[in-house]
């Protein structure tokens, strides 16, 4: 049983001081429905945490709480060790938390640069500073090694699903963000495009960002995640380093809230599980 507790964190985590974002005892209810109950969650910098759970487990609710859309009824949020209150998406953005929702929120008729700067355009007094924005966008995309787009002045409508996801992610990391929340980033993608997006997530991690990925797809989770957190009916039933899980235990936690399969699988067994 690997219920979350700071004592059971692996050495690599214990070495770093506090995780970037720490939730303690978060509860949220809508009328009679208890969406989240005493949830603890750690999102360390430089690591990908996968948030798993069945439909209705509270994944979206938890994400929206971190993103500032919902206010928790109870519980505390610590950002870089300090307690904070995230009252609005603006507060979240101020801290450096950006969310990429499943529908990506891109305007098809605008090009990549225009989308990445949407609502935060750079100006020279009255007019838009296109050259400056184009340079910054090109740098961000190059930093993420998004090189498959032909021109950053191409309308988003002409991009593939994977490229659109890449643009949405690049838009999120552009603002010195430290934590990126990705809601089902691969749900609508084919195999090749999924691989591209997972590679992109690894690069975010390499840049030292904390990443939380919500995903139904355990293949993707095991390919990209460093840690797994499993929600079931609003409770955090498991949270640990990925080596403590295999696919069966994750499914057990998602469906029944516990796993009787015992210890973490031997190294190598995990490889066999992939694909």
């Amino acid at each position, binding site marked *: 049983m690997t219920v979350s507790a700071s004592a059971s964190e692996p050495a690599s985590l214990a070495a770093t001081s506090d995780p970037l974002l720490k939730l303690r005892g978060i509860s949220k209810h809508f009328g009679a429905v208890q969406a989240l109950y005493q949830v603890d969650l750690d999102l360390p910098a430089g690591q990908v945490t996968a948030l798993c759970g069945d439909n209705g487990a509270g994944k979206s609710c938890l994400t929206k709480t971190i993103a500032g859309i919902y206010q928790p009824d109870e519980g505390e949020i610590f950002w870089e060790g300090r307690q904070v209150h995230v009252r609005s998406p603006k507060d979240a953005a101020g801290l450096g938390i950006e969310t990429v929702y499943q529908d990506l929120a891109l305007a098809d008729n605008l090009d990549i640069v225009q989308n990445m700067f949407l609502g935060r355009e750079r100006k020279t007094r009255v007019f838009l500073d296109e050259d400056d924005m184009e340079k910054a966008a090109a740098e961000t995309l190059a930093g993420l090694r998004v090189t498959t787009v*032909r021109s950053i002045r191409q309308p988003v409508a002409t991009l593939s699903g994977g*490229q659109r996801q890449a643009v949405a992610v690049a838009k999120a990391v552009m603002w010195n963000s430290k934590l990126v929340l990705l809601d089902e980033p691969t749900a609508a993608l084919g195999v090749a495009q999924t691989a591209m997006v997972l590679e992109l997530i690894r690069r975010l991690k390499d840049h030292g960002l904390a990443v939380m990925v919500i995903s139904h797809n355990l293949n993707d989770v095991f390919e990209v995640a460093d840690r797994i957190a499993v929600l079931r009916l609003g409770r955090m039933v498991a949270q640990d380093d990925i080596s403590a899980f295999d696919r069966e235990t994750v499914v057990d936690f998602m469906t029944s809230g516990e796993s009787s399969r015992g210890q973490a699988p031997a190294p190598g067994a995990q490889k066999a599980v992939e694909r």
Partner: protein
Amino acid sequence: MTGIDDLRDKPDDPLAAEVEAAPDLTAAAVDVVPPALVAQSMSQYMRAWTVRVRGGDAGVLPVVLALVGVSLVLQIVSPRGLFLSPGNLVNLFIQSSVFIVLAMSEGFVLLLGDIDLSVGYVAAIGGIIAGEFVQPGLNWPWWIAIIIGLAVTCVIGLIYGLIITRLRLPAFVVTLAGFLFYFGVMIILLGAGGSVPISSTILVNQEFLYGIVNTNIPPTFGWIGLAVIVVILGATIWLRDAGRRRSGLVAPPVGLTVAKIAFLAGAGVVVVAICNVNRGTFLPIAGVPWVLPIVLAVLGAWTILLERTQFGRHMYAVGGNAEAARRAGISVNNVRTIAFVLCSLTAGIGGVIYLSWQGGISTNINGGQLVLYAVAAAVIGGTSLFGGRGRAIHGLLGGLVIGAIYNGLYLLGLAIQWQLIATGLVLLAAVAVDSLYRRGSAGA
């Protein structure tokens, strides 16, 4: 279709991308992208542009071709080749100017996926109010009269915008109500006489309003004005392109920049030369009509607003994906409200031009037909009915197409019914092109 599908499928292979891993974002670049941004030389530019046109994004090319085609046909069939004579071309522009300005007006709301059915009568209200203030009793300065007329149309647009955004009513219905409402208001304003004439030769302010369309810039001043405009625009284009080349961004080649400026100057010379030909029958008449620089000024102002300012960018964003705009922190309601204000303001400008052109406004003004022509001109020009795509120049080009049909069929001695039929067919063709374009490009 095929060009776009090819584009979609190929670059998705992440392995291939890793192998190439070109740090230059635009290295592999000849496809459906603005050609000016990927080409380093003129030949590359031309090739990129051809590919882009075949890919379905032809910009203003279809409407320019339509304009050329319509003009050639009308030139061939018009009696004594009258259609392309200098006198008729100037006349054609004057007739088109109201359509052009109303199409630009409608463009603001079409860009958001809305529509304003009342621009015809709102234009009439603006023109009538400007006209009322230069009537014998009041005789206010002409420019104050215009400002008052335009201020009233701005208020009309503001009320539309507030009703549509705050009460969440569909623009179609609200402006349909406005159509009827302002039709009635117009009849009340015109009163018993049924018209507001401004063709007095005694009252200076009436003469001035009348002169907007019906007097010309002296030929010499026409050339001087053209030189000033070409120098300013040429310098702007040159500095922008040179700046991009210097800062290492993908920039159009020097040859293209020179070609753009040369084209601009050449077109200007042709227009001024045509206008400066004596087109009078008894007394000499020559020169650029004042309405031409006025229409170009409106075009320039709205182009800058839409394409160079943050507000314009937000309009495109709201038209393309209102939810994305909202999440990006853009106030969708404010953008829509201001779009209706700009629409009505521009309609008011169209009304003042109509007032000047006709020497007054009477109950004969057909606001219903004007709004249909305005929407048709915008769509023929390339503005999408579904929002997100549209430029001020679409109004100019579409308005000229409608003006050409209107003028050419009149020269042929064909009555109004044939103008209506021809305009209807051109509009249908334009909407079909728009719809095909959307199916081709937005299927992702």
